[in-house]
């Protein structure tokens, strides 16, 4: 079946450095992607999204890159701070006509920050 997965389950980054979290998706027809951050004991929190007609989108300290050729998403966090410590999930919205209502989540990457 279709799935969204992540290359690395854990990532340790020095405070102040940039973080890059990767995600692979298998449904080439998916047309909307979202990154969520989840802190312990809380629900997932929206970070940034991107539609399939874009390659890059920037937010505050975050950038999402979409490579449709290899079905790959990445989340870049600039100048990583202790408050960025969390689990990060990528999620995809299947294309219209195929369970388009649900958003499918990957298993997540835990980001830890070294002081």
């Amino acid at each position, binding site marked *: 079946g279709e799935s969204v997965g992540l290359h690395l389950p854990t990532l340790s980054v020095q405070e102040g450095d940039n973080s890059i979290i990767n995600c692979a998706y298998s449904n080439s027809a998916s047309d909307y992607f979202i990154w969520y951050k989840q802190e312990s004991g809380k*629900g997932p929190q929206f970070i940034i999204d991107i539609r399939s007609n874009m390659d890059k989108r920037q937010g505050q300290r975050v950038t999402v890159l979409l490579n449709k050729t290899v079905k790959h998403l990445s989340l870049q966090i600039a100048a990583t701070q202790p408050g960025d410590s969390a689990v990060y999930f990528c999620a995809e919205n299947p294309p219209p006509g195929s369970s388009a209502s649900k*958003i499918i989540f990957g298993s997540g990457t835990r980001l830890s920050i070294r002081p």
Partner: protein
Amino acid sequence: GAGVSQSPRYKVAKRGQDVALRCDPISGHVSLFWYQQALGQGPEFLTYFQNEAQLDKSGLPSDRFFAERPEGSVSTLKIQRTQQEDSAVYLCASRHTVQHEKLFFGSGTQLSVL
């Protein structure tokens, strides 16, 4: 309210008990989702409502799981005859439109079945 509200925050049930989990979505949001999240895993889709209509329940693991949203606002997820494998965090999420828009999540209900 300002966000998605879920209650109770924690629920401990004895095996075989029935439980009911409540979700108050953001006012005016058409779409409502329930997800199940096991420890160390990503959220797994359970069911989806568009207003009061349950359009997708393909993720419900068994007929012991039942969800409703009778007036298109508040939703309840009911689990009958709970089993230990039902222990997880149950997340509710809503969004304003039908698709291609981010979900807003509640903090979840952590269910522990003993």
